[in-house]
């Protein structure tokens, strides 16, 4: 069975939340950190973040790290850390394949323009 069936790829939100909890933060701190780290590209909604935090707590990937009732602090746990490392390795592999393939098409290297490439969609950002 491929690895991704046993331990699925993390969503972008989960990955960024886990990363920002390498340091103890409260919910709003995570929101701000994720926004800063992605230069405002990813702004987590409160509903999305709250849902992710309670799920990660259930999974044991993060834990409470003090703070008062109003502003609970959270921090990534050992299993959470290994999930982060696993995901980073997976993304590394993905990126390597992507860069290699795109370089081969002559689309994404420094000298090549977009005009002579066979697959113009690959260079388009977002959706």
């Amino acid at each position, binding site marked *: 069975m491929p690895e991704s069936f046993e331990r699925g790829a993390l969503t972008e939100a989960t990955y960024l939340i886990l990363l920002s909890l390498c340091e103890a933060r409260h919910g709003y701190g995570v929101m701000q950190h994720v926004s800063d780290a992605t230069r405002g590209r990813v*702004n987590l909604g409160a509903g*999305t973040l*709250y849902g992710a935090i309670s799920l990660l707590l259930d999974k044991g990937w993060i834990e409470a790290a003090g703070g008062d009732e109003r502003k609970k602090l959270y921090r990534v746990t050992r299993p959470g850390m290994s999930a982060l490392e696993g995901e980073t390795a997976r993304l590394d592999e993905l990126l390597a394949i992507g860069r290699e393939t795109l370089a081969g098409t002559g689309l994404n290297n420094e000298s090549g323009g977009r005009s002579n490439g066979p697959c113009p969609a690959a260079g388009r950002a977002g959706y």
Partner: protein
Amino acid sequence: MVKRVFKLFFDFEKEEAWLNDMARHGWMMDSFFLGVYQFSEGPPEEYVYRIELLPQAAASAGSRPYLRFLEETGAEVVSTWFRWAYYRKKACDGDFEIYTDIGSRIGHYKRVACFMYPVCVLEWCMALIQGINFFMALADPYGVHVPAGFSLFFFMFGLLAGIGIFRAARRSQLQYRRLEREKIIQE
């Protein structure tokens, strides 16, 4: 200045769009009760409004930590109505979305559809009872009944409200189906 508007919405997204439209014109919603929205005048576009269906009643112990969390992020809980919650945030504080990825948006649309379909059935059951009352009152004008006009009114009301609720529920269902397909290829 304060303004009160009576309006019935079945679709929370249309309601949300209307509240934001009012805010654009300088009317900030302050409270909601039984279809009556109260607005106060303010600088246009001061707030962005959002509406959410909570998993539990807004006043319950289960919802409180979440609502507190929301307020911690700079949003304000303007009003709650059973499981519905109305929020606003200063527009100058940037984007205000409750759900920002496909997974959590699917979850919310599903919650709305699961909540609305039973309410729709309930409305139609009530309409049916009123319809039966109406015909009984017609068939036996001298018996002791709820007045026929009264029954007819609530029959029509239940029927139409049920249709409105059904359409809103259907829309949420179509939305989450669309997003579930989308989720196959992207987050």
